């Protein structure tokens, strides 16, 4: 068997990394905001963030096309102002991965922040420490194990995104074909060996990520001991 074109792997990693960074920044900001504020419509806003978790990816893809398509409100804005086209480009794949991984990131970060005892933040306040420094030096480091779990989940979800990606980014070899798309289309074309190559590779990647995360958690919980 010849080694297939590796561009889907490079693209998948690039898409998953970028969407994870976006999901991390957005998820942390949203979880922080939602955890500290009460406002009318808060539960509706939260439901909206979590919605992609329960929707079929094709529904997410359809929604994204409506928003980011050439005639969609955001798509037109991006094209007119920045000359960026999302549909049928790898940017579309990043947006699809971002939307489906954000709920996972949000949930992990929210749970992680809730586990940080508010007394630690209050002690820091009585010491005259600013809210930003408290976030950086107390809340964030103490929530880090949960945030890291969210990052791994978001990355894995971004790496595996198929339905929404296919709808918004399409199948353009070398441009929008990520590993999950490569698996589907090589199998469809009867290239079972190639599909198998990608299946094995992505499974090994997933296993490596989970093993590393578990090992890291054991190490840090040993190091920190119990307070």
């Amino acid at each position, binding site marked *: 068997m010849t080694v297939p074109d590796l561009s889907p792997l490079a693209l998948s990693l690039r898409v998953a990394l970028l969407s994870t960074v976006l999901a991390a920044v957005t998820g942390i900001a949203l979880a922080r905001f939602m955890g500290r504020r009460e406002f009318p419509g808060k539960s509706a806003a939260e439901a909206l963030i979590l919605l992609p978790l329960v929707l079929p990816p094709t529904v997410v893809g359809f929604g994204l096309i409506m928003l980011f398509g050439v005639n969609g409100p955001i798509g037109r804005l991006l094209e007119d102002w920045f000359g960026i086209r999302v549909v049928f480009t790898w940017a579309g794949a990043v947006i699809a991965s971002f939307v489906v991984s954000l709920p996972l990131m949000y949930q992990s970060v929210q749970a992680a922040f809730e586990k940080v*005892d508010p*007394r*630690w933040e*209050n*002690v*820091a*306040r*009585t*010491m*005259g*420490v*600013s809210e930003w*420094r408290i976030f950086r*030096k*107390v809340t964030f*480091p*103490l929530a880090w194990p949960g945030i890291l779990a969210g990052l791994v989940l978001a990355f894995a979800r971004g790496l595996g995104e198929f339905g929404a990606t296919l709808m918004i980014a399409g199948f353009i070899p070398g441009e929008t074909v990520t590993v999950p798309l490569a698996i589907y289309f090589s199998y469809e074309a009867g290239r079972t060996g190639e599909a198998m190559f990608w299946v094995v590779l992505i499974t090994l990647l997933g296993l490596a990520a989970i093993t590393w995360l578990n090992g890291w958690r054991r190490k840090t919980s040993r190091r*920190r*001991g*119990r*307070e």
Partner: protein
Amino acid sequence: MLKAEFTKQLPEFDLQAEFKMDREIVAIVGPSGSGKTTFLNCLAGTVSPDMGRIELGGRVFAEEGGKPLRIQDRRVGYLFQDYALFPHMTVRENILFGLPGQPEPSHVRELTELLGIRPLMDKYPHEISGGEKQRTALARALAMKPELLLLDEPFSALDDETRLRCRNELMRIHRDWQIPVLMVTHSMDEARRTADRIVRIEKGRMAELPIREASL
């Protein structure tokens, strides 16, 4: 001078605080759930009173119709019940957290020497004993040179010998620093041995106990 006259609604009753103190040690005693910790929290600012006024040395912490003063600006040191040391920071980092980017000030050095925690400065909270945690938390609460020190059950987790030692250190610091110290405890014996005055809270109502009566 600390003056606090406020009410705060609690699940089963209202806390009705009417309290004044000078540069002395005052113990607040009372059964659990009587509003002792809520009283301290209102002074520190982690909880806001519903009505009334709190002021310390002419600085207004809270008053009706006004925005409460930020916790950061109150200069109130607070020793929480189980110390709440930052688990991911060393003893040194815990104590100096409110003084970033500065060399260790001389008063912190003296304080940590007095409390006997110099040899522990590079240890993490899970590596030190209960008494050492208590002293670290006390040093941390005092590092910012507060104008009021709040202690929530400061000695309850300590064995008799450590308790005696910590209490003597606290009284010595109080003598040297001359700041008002307000201590919540459920132990009348501890209150009698440490405080200049004792105030009892029961179901949110405060009443001063004559120290002689309390010692009977």
